[in-house]
């Protein structure tokens, strides 16, 4: 590379035919058409390196300021290689579509490969076609790779032969990967497949911020820009201290911010609908209490470890059906000579004695009062089935929703919910890529311990397009493990009102890797309710004091990091 002026490339194919037209005396174009062709080209040229012209060509798409800004940053400052890590519901797909469109209009990208989870292929195709007029084609036949310019596929399909070999022969200008956090492990086939692709421009989309895990961060960035964070050894030397701790954090953060855009709700300067959170404490009936307390005997008899007890207790708080399924399995798997049956049978009897579900009754009461669409989230399939039956007995229509549903079934359930049913009962992970803005009441029937999962639940409705304030009802049974969790995460840390990104920062600073595991550890290792309370209070105050520090820092350096 020298410092002379750039190479000049003439496309000369035009010349030859022109000369032969002179020889054969035409045929010649019509003057009006000739002028129109020049006029059309004049409209299509892009007169500046800077700014976006795609929005002008998308008059029917309502773009938000942060989306336009993100696209411009990615193209002009990040040179087309970026991690898009907006919070759930801020429109990452729109940002990716906008960047794609801009590159296509400018003629910088023609061949584009979009890799998304199988369940989202059709949704991506429909959004790109209808919102961006990008003729994106879901890969179904193998000729599509070669004949279509913009192709959408799942990684699982793409990495298999014969597709893999065909793909490696294509010269892609832009590669887009949705749910890129699934590529965190560099030893997987998926990671190696993506690594093997030639990436001129590349967008990695993820809703899970990667800052928490040093290794994952390194490998994700190295996929995008190998060497940007050094190699594995130098990275460990520069940024790792001890086994899991980060050093030179400021420098690392600064580097990351040059390849990652992360918009947060609070930064978008939009009037987001409010989140109104209500904790609903529910006393157990005598029979339910009896069951809950009896689970302790299993641990005392050393049949189960602390963690399993915790699982059983959480299930018992959800529904007798949920705990029954687990106990039944334990019985089936038990050694013939084990005394376990002797312990479990009385518990099974207690399950039989329960004739009402206090939580379900509370939910019914609330749904009737709301008199509008409601989403109920539960962690357990058994609870989901029970609730569906229970609501039906009481004249309330509901539809189930699970992560395992096929895309078409998900869409169908969504439509049923929108048009025909009052309640949607979803289990965990039911929501990836499904938008339910037409509903604004959520009941967290039982609470996950991982705050990111809570955020993803709420993100289904508290997203672009939601016009109402969102009501969130957190159920917790009194004097149980649930109540502790509710107190900590939701009353003391105010998780729901605060944006999750903030908690994420705090946990990063404190180097708390998995909040849910920390909490589980407290329960497992504590001998008494008093000890649990003290440890939980301790955790709360540590988190809250770190938040205060962050607030102070922000006050001091108004223009911190973006």
């Amino acid at each position, binding site marked *: 590379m020298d410092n002379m*002026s750039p190479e000049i490339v*003439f496309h000369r194919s035009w010349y030859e035919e022109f000369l032969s037209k002179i020889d054969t005396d035409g045929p*010649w174009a019509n003057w009006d058409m000739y002028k129109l062709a*020049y006029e059309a080209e004049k409209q299509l040229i892009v007169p500046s*390196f800077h700014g976006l012209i795609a929005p002008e060509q998308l008059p029917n798409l309502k773009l938000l300021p942060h989306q336009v800004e993100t696209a411009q940053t990615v193209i002009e400052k990040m040179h087309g290689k970026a991690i898009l890590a907006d919070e759930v519901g801020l429109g990452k797909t729109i940002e990716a579509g906008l960047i794609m469109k801009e590159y296509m209009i400018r003629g910088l990208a023609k061949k584009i490969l979009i890799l998304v989870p199988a369940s989202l292929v059709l949704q991506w195709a429909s959004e790109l076609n209808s919102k961006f007029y990008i003729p994106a084609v879901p890969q179904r036949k193998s000729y599509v790779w070669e004949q279509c310019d913009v192709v959408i596929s799942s990684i699982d399909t793409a990495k298999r032969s014969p597709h893999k070999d065909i793909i490696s022969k294509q010269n892609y200008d832009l590669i887009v990967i949705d749910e890129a956090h699934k590529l965190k492990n560099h030893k997987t086939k998926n990671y190696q497949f993506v690594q093997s692709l030639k990436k001129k421009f590349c967008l990695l989309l993820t809703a899970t911020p990667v800052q928490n895990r040093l290794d994952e961060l390194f490998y994700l960035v190295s996929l995008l820009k190998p060497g940007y964070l050094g190699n594995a050894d130098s990275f460990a030397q520069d940024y790792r201290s001890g086994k899991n701790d980060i050093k030179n954090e400021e420098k690392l953060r600064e580097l990351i911010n040059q390849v990652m855009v992360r918009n947060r709700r609070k930064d978008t300067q939009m009037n987001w609908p409010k989140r109104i959170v209500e904790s609903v404490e529910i006393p157990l009936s005598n029979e339910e209490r009896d069951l809950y307390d009896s689970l302790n005997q299993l641990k005392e008899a050393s049949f189960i470890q602390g963690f399993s007890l915790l699982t059983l207790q959480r299930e018992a708080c959800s529904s007798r059906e949920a705990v029954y399924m687990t106990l039944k399995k334990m019985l089936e798997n038990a050694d013939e000579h084990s005394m376990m049956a002797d312990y479990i049978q009385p518990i099974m009897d207690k399950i039989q004695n329960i004739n009402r579900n206090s939580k379900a009754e509370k939910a019914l009461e609330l749904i009737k009062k709301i008199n509008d669409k409601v989403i109920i989230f539960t962690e357990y399939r058994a609870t989901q089935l029970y609730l569906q039956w229970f609501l039906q007995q009481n004249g309330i229509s509901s539809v189930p929703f699970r992560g395992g549903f096929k895309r078409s079934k998900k869409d169908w359930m969504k439509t049923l919910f929108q048009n025909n049913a009052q309640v949607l009962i979803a289990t965990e992970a039911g929501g990836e890529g499904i938008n339910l803005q037409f509903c604004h009441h959520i009941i967290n029937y039982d609470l996950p311990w991982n705050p990111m999962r809570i955020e993803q639940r709420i993100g289904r409705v508290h997203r672009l397009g939601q016009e109402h304030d969102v009501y969130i009802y957190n159920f917790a049974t009194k004097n149980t493990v649930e109540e502790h969790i509710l107190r900590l995460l939701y009353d003391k840390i105010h998780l729901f009102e605060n944006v999750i990104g903030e908690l994420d920062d705090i946990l990063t600073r404190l180097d708390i890797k998995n909040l849910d595991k920390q909490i589980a550890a407290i329960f497992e290792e504590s001998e008494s309710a008093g000890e649990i309370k003290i440890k939980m209070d301790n955790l709360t105050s540590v988190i809250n004091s770190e938040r205060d520090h962050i607030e102070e820092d922000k006050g001091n350096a108004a223009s911190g990091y973006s």
Partner: protein
Amino acid sequence: MQQAAIHNFLEQFFKANECELIENKNGLLKVKLTVELDKLLTNRPFYWHYIEKTGGVPETMTLTLKTEPAEDKDGELIHFGSPRLHQIFRAAKQLSPYIRLYQETDTKGRFTPLVPWLCINSKVSCQCDLKKDDLLSLGLNLMNGAIVEGFHAHLKQMPLTPKIPDYCYTLTPMIKPVSGLKRLEHFIEGKIKEEDHQWAKQAKMRWQKDLQLLDQFYENETDEDVLNAYIKEKEALKEQYEPKVIVQMINGGLFYLDQSTFL
């Protein structure tokens, strides 16, 4: 491009192709396509293949285009980003790559010589990881080698006709069209070299920087698959950053103009 300008463009386009305008008012344009345009715009190659094989009588399609959104009217809404408009833009270019025209001039009954000019309309794009374009319309006098910029704008003002007017005759060019094209290329090169290429320098610096990082990342690797990845990444960086100026033809041709023009 405003909606009114789009409407005007479409109207001109279909008229230039001698399509019948069945309706043309209030932002609504209903046109019966000609065979040529039907083949270009309706994407039904099998139909045309069939008609041509069987010698059947073709029935061309009618397009109904809306340039104003109106709920009560059927039709395809056309705006600046709509695929249909871009298809029509492409069709206009496809239909008019080469031209030859004569200036209509007042001969007063005397024999009048017309001077041959070679015109090219080209798009000049500066490209690295960013891109911008410029249009360049040049006219070369094939008698004396003079070059005029902004040639197309001049031509648009003149009365031009595809048939040589009465009493006019054309001068035989001193410069052959093939060398004329070389002269124009040379002129374009000179013009580009004069320009400020800060953008290209900066792109090269970005390229160099990323290349260094890449080299460090792979420096201790010996595994063949990994080294293949290195080669690919290196190519990708070249494609991403390498600064280039690309010159593409839009259209052009021969224009025979009165001697007094451009004097």
